[in-house]
Protein backbone atom coordinates (compact mmCIF):
# COMPACT_ATOMS: atom_id res chain seq x y z
CA UNK A 1 0.00 0.00 0.00
CA UNK A 2 3.07 2.23 0.25
CA UNK A 3 2.74 3.17 -3.42
CA UNK A 4 -0.82 4.40 -3.15
CA UNK A 5 -1.17 8.16 -3.27
CA UNK A 6 -4.80 8.05 -2.35
CA UNK A 7 -4.32 8.74 1.31
CA UNK A 8 -2.90 11.80 3.03
CA UNK A 9 0.34 13.53 2.31
CA UNK A 10 3.71 11.89 2.81
CA UNK A 11 4.69 14.03 5.74
CA UNK A 12 2.21 12.52 8.19
CA UNK A 13 3.38 9.30 9.84
CA UNK A 14 1.16 6.42 8.80
CA UNK A 15 0.80 2.73 9.33
CA UNK A 16 -0.79 0.06 7.18
CA UNK A 17 -1.59 -3.53 8.06
CA UNK A 18 -3.36 -5.63 5.43
CA UNK A 19 -3.98 -9.34 5.69
CA UNK A 20 -2.59 -11.44 2.85
CA UNK A 21 -5.08 -11.79 0.04
CA UNK A 22 -6.78 -8.43 0.61
CA UNK A 23 -4.14 -6.08 -0.84
CA UNK A 24 -5.64 -5.74 -4.31
CA UNK A 25 -9.22 -5.36 -3.15
CA UNK A 26 -8.41 -2.72 -0.57
CA UNK A 27 -6.23 -0.83 -3.04
CA UNK A 28 -9.13 -0.86 -5.47
CA UNK A 29 -11.50 0.56 -2.84
CA UNK A 30 -9.05 3.36 -2.05
CA UNK A 31 -8.62 4.28 -5.69
CA UNK A 32 -12.25 3.98 -6.76
CA UNK A 33 -13.92 5.15 -3.54
CA UNK A 34 -17.23 3.41 -4.18
CA UNK A 35 -20.42 4.83 -2.66
CA UNK A 36 -21.53 2.91 0.42
CA UNK A 37 -25.05 1.50 0.57
CA UNK A 38 -25.49 2.91 4.04
CA UNK A 39 -23.43 5.38 6.00
CA UNK A 40 -23.79 5.95 9.74
CA UNK A 41 -22.19 8.82 11.68
CA UNK A 42 -21.56 9.19 15.40
CA UNK A 43 -19.82 11.64 17.68
CA UNK A 44 -17.57 10.27 20.40
CA UNK A 45 -17.04 12.46 23.48
CA UNK A 46 -13.88 12.59 25.56
CA UNK A 47 -13.88 10.38 28.67
CA UNK A 48 -17.43 9.17 28.07
CA UNK A 49 -17.27 5.48 28.93
CA UNK A 50 -21.03 5.09 29.12
CA UNK A 51 -22.25 6.36 25.74
CA UNK A 52 -19.15 5.23 23.90
CA UNK A 53 -19.92 1.93 22.24
CA UNK A 54 -23.16 3.08 20.66
CA UNK A 55 -21.68 3.07 17.16
CA UNK A 56 -20.30 -0.44 17.63
CA UNK A 57 -23.57 -1.71 19.00
CA UNK A 58 -25.63 -0.15 16.19
CA UNK A 59 -23.28 -1.38 13.48
CA UNK A 60 -23.32 -4.90 14.90
CA UNK A 61 -27.12 -4.85 15.00
CA UNK A 62 -27.27 -3.57 11.44
CA UNK A 63 -24.87 -6.16 10.04
CA UNK A 64 -26.70 -8.90 11.90
CA UNK A 65 -29.87 -7.91 10.07
CA UNK A 66 -27.93 -8.19 6.80
CA UNK A 67 -27.16 -11.79 7.70
CA UNK A 68 -23.44 -11.39 8.39
CA UNK A 69 -22.13 -14.44 10.25
CA UNK A 70 -21.57 -14.25 14.03
CA UNK A 71 -17.79 -14.58 13.93
CA UNK A 72 -17.48 -11.64 11.52
CA UNK A 73 -19.99 -9.68 13.64
CA UNK A 74 -17.78 -10.30 16.65
CA UNK A 75 -14.67 -9.11 14.78
CA UNK A 76 -16.40 -5.92 13.59
CA UNK A 77 -17.83 -5.20 17.06
CA UNK A 78 -14.53 -5.77 18.85
CA UNK A 79 -12.45 -3.69 16.41
CA UNK A 80 -15.05 -0.93 16.45
CA UNK A 81 -15.43 -0.81 20.24
CA UNK A 82 -11.67 -0.74 20.76
CA UNK A 83 -11.43 2.14 18.31
CA UNK A 84 -14.28 4.01 20.01
CA UNK A 85 -12.62 3.50 23.38
CA UNK A 86 -9.35 4.81 21.96
CA UNK A 87 -11.07 8.02 20.90
CA UNK A 88 -12.80 8.56 24.24
CA UNK A 89 -9.74 7.61 26.31
CA UNK A 90 -6.94 9.25 24.36
CA UNK A 91 -8.34 12.24 22.51
CA UNK A 92 -10.41 15.39 22.92
CA UNK A 93 -13.22 13.50 21.25
CA UNK A 94 -13.94 12.72 17.64
CA UNK A 95 -16.28 11.08 15.22
CA UNK A 96 -16.82 7.80 13.49
CA UNK A 97 -18.35 6.97 10.14
CA UNK A 98 -19.40 3.44 9.30
CA UNK A 99 -19.69 2.83 5.57
CA UNK A 100 -21.58 -0.35 4.93
CA UNK A 101 -21.31 -2.09 1.55
CA UNK A 102 -22.86 -5.33 0.31
CA UNK A 103 -19.76 -7.42 1.02
CA UNK A 104 -17.59 -5.40 3.41
CA UNK A 105 -17.60 -2.58 5.94
CA UNK A 106 -15.23 0.36 6.30
CA UNK A 107 -15.14 2.25 9.59
CA UNK A 108 -13.34 5.58 9.87
CA UNK A 109 -12.45 7.17 13.18
CA UNK A 110 -11.14 10.69 13.33
CA UNK A 111 -10.37 12.58 16.52
CA UNK A 112 -9.53 16.18 17.44
CA UNK A 113 -6.05 15.43 18.70
CA UNK A 114 -3.57 15.50 20.33
CA UNK A 115 -2.15 12.74 18.12
CA UNK A 116 0.12 9.76 18.67
CA UNK A 117 3.79 10.43 19.39
CA UNK A 118 5.07 7.19 17.93
CA UNK A 119 2.77 4.92 15.91
CA UNK A 120 5.11 1.92 15.86
CA UNK A 121 5.31 2.06 19.63
CA UNK A 122 1.52 2.44 19.95
CA UNK A 123 1.08 -0.75 17.92
CA UNK A 124 3.16 -2.79 20.37
CA UNK A 125 0.98 -5.01 22.60
CA UNK A 126 1.25 -3.81 26.19
CA UNK A 127 2.33 -0.26 25.40
CA UNK A 128 -0.18 2.22 26.80
CA UNK A 129 -0.44 5.89 27.67
CA UNK A 130 -3.89 5.43 29.24
CA UNK A 131 -4.75 7.55 32.25
CA UNK A 132 -6.06 6.40 35.62
CA UNK A 133 -9.70 6.77 34.58
CA UNK A 134 -9.29 4.52 31.53
CA UNK A 135 -7.59 1.91 33.71
CA UNK A 136 -10.34 2.08 36.30
CA UNK A 137 -12.81 1.41 33.53
CA UNK A 138 -10.96 -1.79 32.69
CA UNK A 139 -9.07 -0.46 29.69
CA UNK A 140 -5.51 0.76 29.23
CA UNK A 141 -3.79 -2.61 28.94
CA UNK A 142 -2.16 -1.58 25.69
CA UNK A 143 -4.15 -4.09 23.67
CA UNK A 144 -6.57 -1.85 21.80
CA UNK A 145 -4.70 -1.25 18.56
CA UNK A 146 -3.32 -4.82 18.44
CA UNK A 147 -6.88 -6.11 18.88
CA UNK A 148 -8.09 -3.91 16.03
CA UNK A 149 -5.28 -5.15 13.81
CA UNK A 150 -6.01 -8.76 14.72
CA UNK A 151 -9.71 -8.52 13.91
CA UNK A 152 -9.76 -6.64 10.63
CA UNK A 153 -8.69 -7.44 7.09
CA UNK A 154 -7.08 -4.06 6.54
CA UNK A 155 -6.14 -1.26 8.88
CA UNK A 156 -4.79 2.24 8.29
CA UNK A 157 -3.59 4.58 11.01
CA UNK A 158 -2.20 8.06 10.59
CA UNK A 159 -1.30 10.57 13.23
CA UNK A 160 1.12 13.27 14.08
CA UNK A 161 1.99 14.76 17.44
CA UNK A 162 -0.31 17.71 18.07
CA UNK A 163 -2.62 16.82 15.20
CA UNK A 164 -5.55 14.52 14.77
CA UNK A 165 -5.47 10.76 14.47
CA UNK A 166 -7.27 8.84 11.75
CA UNK A 167 -7.96 5.14 11.97
CA UNK A 168 -9.68 3.24 9.17
CA UNK A 169 -10.41 -0.45 9.07
CA UNK A 170 -11.84 -2.79 6.47
CA UNK A 171 -13.63 -6.04 7.24
CA UNK A 172 -15.08 -8.40 4.63
CA UNK A 173 -18.14 -10.48 5.46
CA UNK A 174 -16.72 -13.56 3.78
CA UNK A 175 -13.61 -14.90 5.48
CA UNK A 176 -10.77 -15.84 3.16
CA UNK A 177 -8.64 -18.89 3.40
CA UNK A 178 -5.10 -17.57 3.69
CA UNK A 179 -3.64 -21.05 3.38
CA UNK A 180 -4.87 -21.31 -0.20
CA UNK A 181 -2.74 -18.36 -1.29
Amino acid at each position, binding site marked *: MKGSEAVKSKSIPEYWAIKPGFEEEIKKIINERPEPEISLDYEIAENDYVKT*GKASSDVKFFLKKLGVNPEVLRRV*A*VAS*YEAEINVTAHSKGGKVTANIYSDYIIMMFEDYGPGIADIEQAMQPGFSTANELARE*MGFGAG*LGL*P*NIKKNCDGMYLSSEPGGSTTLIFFIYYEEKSYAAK
Partner: protein
Amino acid sequence: MGVKIKDLIAAIDGKVLTQSVETESIVIEDGYVSDLLSDVMGNARDNQAWITIMKHMNSVAVASLAGIPCIVFAKGVQPEKEVIQKGEEEKVLLVTSELSSFEICGKLYCLLNDLKK
Protein backbone atom coordinates in the same frame (compact mmCIF):
# COMPACT_ATOMS: atom_id res chain seq x y z
CA MET B 1 -21.00 -30.69 24.49
CA GLY B 2 -21.13 -28.36 27.41
CA VAL B 3 -22.45 -27.52 30.83
CA LYS B 4 -25.91 -26.05 31.20
CA ILE B 5 -25.63 -22.65 32.79
CA LYS B 6 -28.14 -23.75 35.46
CA ASP B 7 -25.72 -26.49 36.54
CA LEU B 8 -22.84 -24.04 36.76
CA ILE B 9 -24.95 -21.60 38.78
CA ALA B 10 -25.87 -24.41 41.18
CA ALA B 11 -22.25 -25.52 41.52
CA ILE B 12 -20.98 -22.06 42.43
CA ASP B 13 -24.02 -21.19 44.55
CA GLY B 14 -24.58 -18.30 42.19
CA LYS B 15 -27.34 -15.76 42.18
CA VAL B 16 -28.87 -14.69 38.87
CA LEU B 17 -29.07 -10.88 38.67
CA THR B 18 -30.76 -10.55 35.30
CA GLN B 19 -34.12 -12.23 35.85
CA SER B 20 -35.45 -11.58 32.36
CA VAL B 21 -32.53 -13.21 30.56
CA GLU B 22 -33.41 -16.68 29.44
CA THR B 23 -31.04 -19.32 30.86
CA GLU B 24 -32.30 -22.54 29.25
CA SER B 25 -30.46 -22.07 25.98
CA ILE B 26 -27.10 -21.10 27.48
CA VAL B 27 -24.57 -23.91 27.34
CA ILE B 28 -21.02 -23.28 28.49
CA GLU B 29 -18.17 -25.18 26.89
CA ASP B 30 -15.26 -23.20 28.28
CA GLY B 31 -14.40 -20.26 30.49
CA TYR B 32 -12.34 -17.11 30.41
CA VAL B 33 -11.02 -15.17 33.39
CA SER B 34 -9.79 -11.61 33.10
CA ASP B 35 -10.44 -8.14 34.45
CA LEU B 36 -8.81 -6.41 31.49
CA LEU B 37 -11.52 -5.63 28.98
CA SER B 38 -9.30 -5.57 25.91
CA ASP B 39 -7.89 -8.93 26.89
CA VAL B 40 -11.44 -10.28 27.10
CA MET B 41 -12.38 -8.75 23.76
CA GLY B 42 -9.28 -10.17 22.14
CA ASN B 43 -9.61 -13.68 23.50
CA ALA B 44 -12.99 -14.63 24.94
CA ARG B 45 -15.45 -16.57 22.79
CA ASP B 46 -19.20 -17.06 22.54
CA ASN B 47 -19.24 -20.47 24.21
CA GLN B 48 -17.54 -19.27 27.39
CA ALA B 49 -18.56 -18.00 30.78
CA TRP B 50 -16.55 -14.88 31.62
CA ILE B 51 -15.44 -14.74 35.23
CA THR B 52 -14.44 -11.32 36.52
CA ILE B 53 -14.62 -8.76 39.31
CA MET B 54 -14.92 -5.89 36.79
CA LYS B 55 -18.48 -4.75 37.40
CA HIS B 56 -18.62 -1.52 35.41
CA MET B 57 -21.15 -0.92 32.66
CA ASN B 58 -18.39 -1.52 30.12
CA SER B 59 -18.26 -5.19 31.09
CA VAL B 60 -21.79 -5.67 29.75
CA ALA B 61 -20.89 -3.77 26.59
CA VAL B 62 -17.84 -5.97 26.07
CA ALA B 63 -19.82 -9.19 26.62
CA SER B 64 -22.58 -8.05 24.31
CA LEU B 65 -20.23 -6.90 21.54
CA ALA B 66 -17.97 -9.94 21.78
CA GLY B 67 -20.93 -12.33 21.96
CA ILE B 68 -20.20 -13.68 25.45
CA PRO B 69 -23.47 -15.06 26.87
CA CYS B 70 -22.74 -14.92 30.60
CA ILE B 71 -20.71 -12.88 33.09
CA VAL B 72 -20.00 -14.43 36.47
CA PHE B 73 -18.98 -11.86 39.07
CA ALA B 74 -16.68 -13.41 41.66
CA LYS B 75 -16.10 -12.61 45.32
CA GLY B 76 -19.69 -11.50 45.81
CA VAL B 77 -19.23 -8.51 43.52
CA GLN B 78 -22.56 -6.78 43.06
CA PRO B 79 -22.92 -4.45 40.07
CA GLU B 80 -25.07 -1.30 40.20
CA LYS B 81 -28.67 -1.65 39.13
CA GLU B 82 -27.99 0.33 35.92
CA VAL B 83 -25.47 -2.34 34.98
CA ILE B 84 -27.99 -5.12 35.66
CA GLN B 85 -30.56 -3.23 33.62
CA LYS B 86 -28.08 -2.99 30.76
CA GLY B 87 -27.52 -6.74 31.04
CA GLU B 88 -31.26 -7.30 30.72
CA GLU B 89 -31.43 -5.03 27.68
CA GLU B 90 -28.45 -6.65 25.98
CA LYS B 91 -29.58 -10.16 27.00
CA VAL B 92 -26.31 -10.89 28.77
CA LEU B 93 -26.83 -13.16 31.78
CA LEU B 94 -25.27 -11.69 34.93
CA VAL B 95 -24.55 -13.99 37.85
CA THR B 96 -22.80 -13.25 41.13
CA SER B 97 -21.12 -15.75 43.42
CA GLU B 98 -19.39 -15.45 46.78
CA LEU B 99 -16.60 -17.73 45.53
CA SER B 100 -13.30 -16.37 44.22
CA SER B 101 -12.45 -16.43 40.50
CA PHE B 102 -10.11 -19.33 41.22
CA GLU B 103 -12.82 -21.36 42.94
CA ILE B 104 -15.41 -20.64 40.24
CA CYS B 105 -12.96 -21.76 37.57
CA GLY B 106 -12.25 -24.90 39.56
CA LYS B 107 -15.94 -25.77 39.75
CA LEU B 108 -16.47 -25.10 36.04
CA TYR B 109 -13.39 -27.09 35.15
CA CYS B 110 -14.65 -30.08 37.15
CA LEU B 111 -18.10 -29.88 35.56
CA LEU B 112 -16.60 -29.82 32.07
CA ASN B 113 -14.22 -32.64 32.93
CA ASP B 114 -17.03 -34.79 34.31
CA LEU B 115 -18.71 -34.61 30.91
CA LYS B 116 -15.73 -36.27 29.29
CA LYS B 117 -15.85 -39.29 31.60
